[in-house]
């Protein structure tokens, strides 16, 4: 077991150095003693013996040094390398700062993006075993496009999906809180098994449990945030009364701060109140009354595929046996793993950014490698000397890697600081809800990642220069030649710069594709005019207004009083503001039309007051808008959009045609206008059939209650936000209890709908710009280097009469050749790489000619600029000095 002995020896010596030193000293003095004794025994005097012994023994210090050299050479040498590298880095502050900042940029950006990816995609959802949860959703719809189910379907699904251990349903509603200042909050009405299905428990009190029934319908669970805001985080909140929508409730529990409803991740604000959904078998009779989201938990051992099998089976059965469902696109419904559904869109964007940041990091490393090489040229003599004196190649490589490692470490420290700032900025300024709603933070895992990146950066930046320099032929370097003979060929450095240019080109191309696509998105005609317009939510508490006539009167008063304000051009209210939430469709019956097989006429239903179309700036294609005369007593009228007119009355004039809501016996509604299509669910959507019914007539049209919650849209002459105080006063004058919430301009609404593409585009553009900057610095370096190496040749040319412009061109051409090679390589790579962003593009091809023409041009212009400085310097060369300088 020689190696064990040896390892123990090395180990012991390293850690017991002090003892070892003392032992050595004692051993030497013993040796000296014996030597003296020997001389004395040979008949010398004590003094002579001592002198002779010392003479023959020599300098103790030297021996000790030599003995020490045999100790743990690897570790000891490393410490020396460290000290040595630190000293060198301190001595070259300019170089060190540049390298550390460059690496810090790459590491910081990578760390920040990784922090986002980790926080948003890798961090588990706040449920127990979240990967066992599925949500029933349209297979192809994105998460913003709601998929609702009826209570009947919930009940039937429970029976027909053995691969689910639990299936819960919930719906959402906004409610008014009447504690202190009136406040409107998002609330959810959840089935009793909802919290147990998700596997979450309350922070205080309790959640609902499957055995809860009618006795718990007046109980409510608060979010952590609401508990803090409304109850000052009172520990004894459980059992206290709270008025919601004018009705009394009792607090049953408080959810932990981390809890979110699944779909909260797409919303601006989280759900803050949870009430119990209790229904009787009668409530669950209708198949088509769809307003519930369904969340299920997989049986142990079951897969989402098994649930899908259950779904497909039961859907087939329903289509065959249930008349109402015959025409529904049930086969589109899928059981999607929760995380996949919720972060489907943002995932692609984040992975694109992760890829982009990888490129940026590579460029940064190439640049530092470049700096190290450039400095290495200056150190060739020194390294050659070391090699001659016996330093092995491994030793030289290690020494150079230690230096780049130190740089990377400092870069990582700078990078982590940058990452903190970046993540904070993203959370503050990027209104991407899916990111904002997740607790993104730079934690231990992210820091570990930063260290890993630093290690990779060390190797990327340091290995190439280290290998190159350690190969330096000692004789070449030492043979005194100062000129071209001894210098490293610029090939390696040219290659690095060309690679940087190629990677930058890929980034610039992707960024410009996204920017072009974003511009296209901005150009999309939304069907309404968001300029100079304001939206505020006006919600009456249902309990305060039991009488529909009062609801209608208040909303009418609000609209007329606000419309009369100076500076207001038009005002009108609507059930759901475009681009803020989906509407949902409602089956309709068309007059003089039998329900045909495979046809299920329906439309997204809006409820509007007079003035709405004018305020939103929706033009009428035919007929008229909803007007003041369409009141409670007047004949029922509706406006439909062009898509609906074309779908149900193709080739006919829809004006004067009649339909009614629902499939049972409701009163007929006459179409008096056809409006232009409004993009309601998203900026990009398939046009959907939409119908607008007068708010005053809604209770008659549905034989139901009046809409208490409406969004008031105000078109103004000047700055719409300036009018908010006046509007608030007017509404207060009508009813003090009405909260004014969700105040925003329509510009903001339209802009928020594009938050995600804007975020991706912006970040990618910044990365592309940084990469280009680094590449330009690298190019500047290599062109200067080559120009200075050719100074003699240039001197000869000038002496022979070359004009300054010719000399400049000589140098600039060198830069253009180098980055030209990079551009060509980059274009080839881009043809493939743009496939990654293709899914994010709207309205342009991934091979968009404009982007492919502009990006290389940008690169070449930057190249010319970066080469011009060394070119100008070369042109000013004094030929006499240049020629003498040998």
């Amino acid at each position, binding site marked *: 077991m020689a190696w064990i002995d040896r390892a123990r020896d090395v180990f012991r010596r390293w850690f017991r150095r002090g003892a070892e030193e003392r032992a050595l000293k004692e051993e030497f003095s*013993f040796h000296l003693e014996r030597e003296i004794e020997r001389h004395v025994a040979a008949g010398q005097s004590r003094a002579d013996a001592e002198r002779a012994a010392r003479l023959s023994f020599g300098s103790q210090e030297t021996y000790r040094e030599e003995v020490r050299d045999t100790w743990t050479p690897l570790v000891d040498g490393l410490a020396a390398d460290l000290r040595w590298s630190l000293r060198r880095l301190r001595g070259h502050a300019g170089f060190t700062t540049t390298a550390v900042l460059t690496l810090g940029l790459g590491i910081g950006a990578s760390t920040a993006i990784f922090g986002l990816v980790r926080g948003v995609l890798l961090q588990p959802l706040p449920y127990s075993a979240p990967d066992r949860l599925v949500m029933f959703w349209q297979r192809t719809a994105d998460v913003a496009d709601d998929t609702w189910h009826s209570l009947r379907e919930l009940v039937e699904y429970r029976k027909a999906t053995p691969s689910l251990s639990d299936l819960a349903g919930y719906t959402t509603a906004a409610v008014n809180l009447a504690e202190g200042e009136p406040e409107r909050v998002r609330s959810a009405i959840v089935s009793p098994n909802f919290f147990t299905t998700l596997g979450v428990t309350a922070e205080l009190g309790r959640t609902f449990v499957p055995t809860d029934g009618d006795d718990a319908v007046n109980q409510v669970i608060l979010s952590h945030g609401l508990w803090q805001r409304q109850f000052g985080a009172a520990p004894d909140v459980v059992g206290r009364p709270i008025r919601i929508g004018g009705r009394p409730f009792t607090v049953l529990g408080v959810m932990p701060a981390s809890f979110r409803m699944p779909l909260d991740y797409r919303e601006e604000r989280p759900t803050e109140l949870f009430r119990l959904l209790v229904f009787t078998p009668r409530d669950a009779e209708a198949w088509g009354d769809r307003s519930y989201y369904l969340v299920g938990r997989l049986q142990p051992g079951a897969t989402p595929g098994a649930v899908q099998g259950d779904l497909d089976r039961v859907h087939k059965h329903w289509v065959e046996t249930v008349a109402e469902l015959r025409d529904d696109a049930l086969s589109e419904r899928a059981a999607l793993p929760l995380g996949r559904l919720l972060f489907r869109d943002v995932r692609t964007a984040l992975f694109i950014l992760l890829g982009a940041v990888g490129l940026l990091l590579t460029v940064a490393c190439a640049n530092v490698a470049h700096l190290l090489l450039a400095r290495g040229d200056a150190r060739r003599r020194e390294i050659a000397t070391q090699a001659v004196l016996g330093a092995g190649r491994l030793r030289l490589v290690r020494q150079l890697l230690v230096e780049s490692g130190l740089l990377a470490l400092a870069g990582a420290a700078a990078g982590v600081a940058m990452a903190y700032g970046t993540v904070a900025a993203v959370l503050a300024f990027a209104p991407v809800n899916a990111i904002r709603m997740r607790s993104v933070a730079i934690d231990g895992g992210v820091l570990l990642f930063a260290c890993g990146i630093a290690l990779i950066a060390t190797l990327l930046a340091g290995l190439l220069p280290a290998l190159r320099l350690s190969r330096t032929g000692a004789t070449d370097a030492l043979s005194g030649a100062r000129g071209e003979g001894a210098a490293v060929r610029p090939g390696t450095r040219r290659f690095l710069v060309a690679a940087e240019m190629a990677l930058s080109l890929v980034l610039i191309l992707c960024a410009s594709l996204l920017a072009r696509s974003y511009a296209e998105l901005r150009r999309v005609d939304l069907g309404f005019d968001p300029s100079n317009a304001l939206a505020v939510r006006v919600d009456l508490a249902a309990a305060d207004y039991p009488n529909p006539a009062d609801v209608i009167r208040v909303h009418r008063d609000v609209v007329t009083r606000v419309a009369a304000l100076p500076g207001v051009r038009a005002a009108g209210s609507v059930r759901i503001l475009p681009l803020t939430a989906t509407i949902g469709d409602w089956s309709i019956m068309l007059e003089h039309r039998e329900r045909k097989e495979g046809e299920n006429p329906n439309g997204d239903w809006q409820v509007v007051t007079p003035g709405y179309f004018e305020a939103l700036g929706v033009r009428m294609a035919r007929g008229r808008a909803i007007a003041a005369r369409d009141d409670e007593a007047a004949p029922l009228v509706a406006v439909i959009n062009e898509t609906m007119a074309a779908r149900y009355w193709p080739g006919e004039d829809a004006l004067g045609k009649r339909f009614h809501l629902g499939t049972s016996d409701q009163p007929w509604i006459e179409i008096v206008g056809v409006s232009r299509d409004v993009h309601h669910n998203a900026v990009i959507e398939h046009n959907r059939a939409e119908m607008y019914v007068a708010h005053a007539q809604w209770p008659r049209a549905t034989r139901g209650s009046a809409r208490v919650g409406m969004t008031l849209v105000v078109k103004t002459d000047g700055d719409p936000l300036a009018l908010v105080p006046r509007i608030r006063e007017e509404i207060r004058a009508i009813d003090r209890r009405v909260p004014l919430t969700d105040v925003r301009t329509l510009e903001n609404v339209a802009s928020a709908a594009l938050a995600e593409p804007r975020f991706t585009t912006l970040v990618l553009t910044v990365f592309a710009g940084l990469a280009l900057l680094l590449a330009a610095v690298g190019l500047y370096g290599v062109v200067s280097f080559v120009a200075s190496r050719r100074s003699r040749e240039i001197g000869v040319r000038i002496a022979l009469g070359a004009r300054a412009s010719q000399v400049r061109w000589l140098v600039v051409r060198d830069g253009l050749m180098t980055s030209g090679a990079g551009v060509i390589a980059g274009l080839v790579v881009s043809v493939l790489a743009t496939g990654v962003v293709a899914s994010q593009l709207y309205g342009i091809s991934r091979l968009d000619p404009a982007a492919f023409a502009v990006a290389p041009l940008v690169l070449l212009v930057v190249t010319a600029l970066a080469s011009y400085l060394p070119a100008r310097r070369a042109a000013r060369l004094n030929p006499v000095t240049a020629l003498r300088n040998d």
Partner: protein
Amino acid sequence: MAESGFQVPPGTLEMLVLKVLSREPEHGWGIGHRLQQLSRGRFDVNQGSLYPALQRLLAKGWIRSAWQVTDSGRRARYYHLTKSGEAQLAREYESWSRQVDAVRWVLRRS
């Protein structure tokens, strides 16, 4: 030392130290002394080579060291051969003998 001796031939010091220690454990001074004796006074061991050589042998695990009290009652560091040291000595002896034979054959021919 009055009589001028030879330096130990390059590369043989470690082998010779092992040989000395194969007889009995010895301290640094003793090893030098024994080498001189055994070479009939021809080898003059330089302490500057001896102690680093001992450290190298320790590092390779061919010898071990321990503090012991000498006959005269003083503490001294004694070195002794390990099993792998014995094997190493045998290997080196073998290879050295071949070299010496080879050198002798060449010299005899010419």
